[in-house]
């Protein structure tokens, strides 16, 4: 991470020396980048505008222009629908993603620490199997997981979605890289000489040194779980256990029969996206560090 911040300004032209050749000129580059930015923002802007419209205006007024302001009514309708099931979905998502990512990060930190710091027989074999797990896509696992949970009669429960979400081989991979980079061997050796136990060393020294990196790991896993769709779709029948993504999906698939759900789906989508986009933007630094580790070291 320090490497990244250090190279940040390294690309500025050296003062006093004229740059040779025009190369790319600034204006077309800017126009291109602005056009792409427009493409990225258009759907978000449309969602913002649409969330403020009544169901009638949604169909009858131009999509990119504001009509009568109905955001307040839409929001109260959203939270009133089916006895406030939407709030329940939000809380579920928070529980699946928040608790799942927190536990997952701790497990990954311990495993990554063990793989980075200790030299033991079978270390590379264990790491290879974990890396193999990275290549097994979550969607390929969803169906087998369903069959397995059906075997013990545990589908359609909170745990059927929560437990598989905790496991993230990619987090272990990241944690190992971060642990190797951020914990000097001498520090551990010194602590051992001072008489500290292995667990104490991990808890009081290693965890602290890894903590900025662990924020990254947590964020990655949080978003992956929050966005998970196939696993809850396969596992859950009870609407009260749905995460918000699955809830919105069921509303949208009913819009042909219940047109009012169109507005609710849109407002619901907006409300569900705001917290995660904000988190993203506020913690951008950590994201870039995590992506850099994934890209550069592989």
């Amino acid at each position, binding site marked *: 991470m320090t490497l990244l911040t250090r190279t940040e300004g390294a690309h500025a032209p050296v003062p006093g020396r004229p740059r040779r050749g025009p190369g790319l000129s600034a204006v077309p580059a800017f126009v*291109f980048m602005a056009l792409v930015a427009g493409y990225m923002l258009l759907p978000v802007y449309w969602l913002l505008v649409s969330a403020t419209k009544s169901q009638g205006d949604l169909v009858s007024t131009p999509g990119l222009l504001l009509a009568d302001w109905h955001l307040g009514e839409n929001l109260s309708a959203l939270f009133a629908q089916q006895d406030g099931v939407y709030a329940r979905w939000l809380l579920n998502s928070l529980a699946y993603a928040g608790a799942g990512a927190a536990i997952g990060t701790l497990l990954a930190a311990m495993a990554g620490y063990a793989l980075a710091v200790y030299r033991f027989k079978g270390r590379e074999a264990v790491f290879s199997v974990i890396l193999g797990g990275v290549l097994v896509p979550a969607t390929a696992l969803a169906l087998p997981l369903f069959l397995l949970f059906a075997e013990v009669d545990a589908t359609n429960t909170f745990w059927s979605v929560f437990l598989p979400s905790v496991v993230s081989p990619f987090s272990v991979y990241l944690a190992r890289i971060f642990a190797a980079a951020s914990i000097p061997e001498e520090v551990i050796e010194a602590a051992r000489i001072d008489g500290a136990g292995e667990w104490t060393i991990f808890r009081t020294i290693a965890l602290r040194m890894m903590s900025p990196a662990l924020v990254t790991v947590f964020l990655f896993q949080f978003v992956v779980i929050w966005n998970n769709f196939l696993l809850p779709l396969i596992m859950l029948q009870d609407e009260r256990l749905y995460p918000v993504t699955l809830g919105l999906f069921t509303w949208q698939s009913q819009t042909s029969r219940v047109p009012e759900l169109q507005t609710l789906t849109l407002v619901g989508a907006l409300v569900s996206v705001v917290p995660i986009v904000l988190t993203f933007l506020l913690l951008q630094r950590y994201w870039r560090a995590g992506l850099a580790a994934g890209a550069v070291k592989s």
Partner: protein
Amino acid sequence: MTTTRTPATTPRRRTLAPFAFLAPFLIPFVLFTLVPVGYAFWQSLHRTERTGGTFGRTETVFAGFEQYADVVSEPFFVDSLVRVALFGLVQIPVMLALALALALLLDSAVARLKRFFRLVYFVPYGIPGVVAALMWAFLYDPQLSPVVGLLRSAHLDVDLLGPGAVLFSIGNVVTWTYTGYNMLIMYAALQAVPADLSEAARVDGAGAWTIALRIKVPVIRPALVLTGVFSLIGTFQLFTEPQVFRAISTSVTSTYTPNLAAYSLASSDRYSEAAALSVLLAVATFALSFLFLRFTARRQG
């Protein structure tokens, strides 16, 4: 955990410690990743048979690779595979080229407002796939969409959800969602390219284009390969977007992609065939990523 250190216990404690640290991860990893894979494979080799009419017992019998033969001979198998392959051939290069262009521009001295653009490009990745697909589904809807309205006023009457266009419409959603993510991976790698490398080339008279294509791109190869593998895996696993689009477009069938087909098989209680298809899909994905890695590694050497 005592803090007294005796020569006899220290090495022993230290040989056990890594396993104690690994176990809390490995146990759920085995249970929820390795066992399901193994179980799916086992299930794919067996078939449930009913004996003696409606009230008879069901029993599981070994069927070898029968299930696989059944799945492979279904018309949807080849259709859906060809569909995702076509999808990947067009969508992956478009998305990665766009991501690379943006990353190089952000990394070059030319660009203005870098911080703002970097932020904006990354916003779609923060939006869940389901929500992104929902949003675009509304934007493709002939009744609601300002985009379709604009095209109509230019006398272009296109049905973005029709059989010919819907695959491209889905491709657009995927491109929109993941371009920024791939761009950030490439951009992060570009940041680690030593500045004196480009500076030396500049002194030698190389233009910005040459520096970008001849120096920066080769250096960030590992990052490019990584985005390629991730995109390939994503393409063969395509599920969320077509599943959402099924609600609004009759062109998206229940067996539109291999993953969708596996899901449909499972929902109609054909578990063994669903398992066989899942295994085939996982093996194919694995093999493709592996081949891709090998191929790109050889070209380098």
